[in-house]
């Protein structure tokens, strides 16, 4: 089996201490490999966002370990962590994904430029990433000249530009209608099938269903995991005759 891109080992995250302590995550373990999309469901306050923040190195666990692309985040300096976020991890949120003053291609090239790539080289890589999401023709447009669905396509391109291999998506279809939302999920699925790894946080079962596995969080714990069926054709049973 291929090396995991994301690994959470018995991760705990507690906010505050004593009687007022909030246990956001309590011993969560999770492995996500290349080509795998994992859905995360659960009620508000169940720890979904905490899990995503820990996976992206935006927060640190109170106990346990987070590994991204084989490297433990625990001992990393802030600089190393920032570099890892630029090079390996991409985020897609519900909205406010793109910088309004930059064109689509400039938005996608940004993490590469921040990582020290030359403007021209970064632009070439960004154009390729945009082509992969079918947005090459609109590369010169500003975000407010794009529809919501197109903006999310650009956000996915940026999340997986260059060497980035882990996409963390938090309700990426939240503001979109069902058809457009589905197109965005289809695209995310394609990018993951092409070799990335993804974590998709959503409260909509229909969206989580695009994942290979769906975990259910409650009170900071994984209470359920749903993987693929061995015999999908069993779902298509004949209607009992009446």
């Amino acid at each position: 089996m291929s090396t995991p891109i994301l690994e959470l080992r018995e991760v705990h995250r507690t906010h505050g201490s004593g009687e007022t302590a909030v246990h956001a995550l309590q011993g969560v373990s999770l492995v996500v490999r290349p080509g795998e999309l994992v859905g995360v469901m659960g009620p508000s306050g169940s720890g979904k966002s905490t899990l995503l923040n820990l996976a992206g190195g935006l927060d640190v666990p109170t106990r346990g370990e987070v590994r991204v692309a084989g490297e433990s985040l625990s001992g990393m300096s802030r600089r190393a962590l920032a570099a890892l976020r630029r090079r390996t991890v991409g985020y897609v949120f519900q909205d406010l994904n793109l910088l309004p003053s930059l064109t689509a291609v400039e938005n996608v090239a940004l993490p590469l430029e921040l990582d020290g790539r030359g403007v021209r080289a970064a632009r070439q890589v960004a154009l390729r990433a945009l082509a992969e999401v079918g947005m090459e023709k609109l590369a010169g447009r500003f975000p407010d000249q794009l529809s919501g669905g197109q903006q999310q396509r650009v956000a996915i391109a940026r999340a997986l530009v260059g060497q980035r291999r882990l996409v963390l998506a938090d309700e990426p279809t939240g503001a979109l209608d069902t058809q457009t939302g589905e197109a965005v999920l289809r695209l995310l699925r394609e990018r993951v099938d092409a070799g990335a790894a993804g974590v998709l946080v959503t409260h909509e079962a229909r969206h989580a269903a695009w994942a290979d596995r769906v975990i259910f969080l409650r009170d900071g714990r994984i209470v359920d995991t749903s993987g693929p069926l061995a015999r999908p054709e069993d779902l298509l049973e004949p209607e009992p005759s009446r």
Partner: protein
Amino acid sequence: MSIKHGLLALLKAGPRYGYQLRAAFEASTGATWPLNIGQVYTTLSRLERDGLVRSLPEEDGGQRPYEITDAGRAEVAHWFATPVARSERPRDELAIKLALALTTPGVDVAAVVQTQRTATMRALQEYTRLKARSDERSDLSWRLVLDAMIFQAEAEVRWLDHCEASLVRYRPAPASGTPAPGTAATADAAPEAASTS
């Protein structure tokens, strides 16, 4: 699902014999409801008895095509014009099961909810996979049938979430908050995840 009306609707497009009707039915519904050929012929003979179709002379291959009558056309029009009554749908076994789980001693209701939700989620994943493989244009009728199943499964998951929240709020049972029997707290029991410092 009324096979009678399904066959009548297909015959409105022109005369067909049994095997053709079965193939056409499965093409539109993506084999969601596989028909056996016996059902098709039984239904056709009932439709003929009721004057909604009439059989035509046998073809060279020995198949006997059927064509729709004026009364049959009126029946199809009426069918499409009438909404499906909710009372004609099958009883919701799951709702009844959960209601009984609440009142039956020794039943872990939270576990019943979780078991069902995992199963429904799994079904939802498979429907989505089938949909992802289908073609947006040429498989349109089959995709609409799949969408119906997807939305129904989604509604069930939402309802189960709602049940779970209600259980936590109004019925603080000792079983809630602990994982269901047989489910581990890890999403991937990979051996490399075993050692933690």
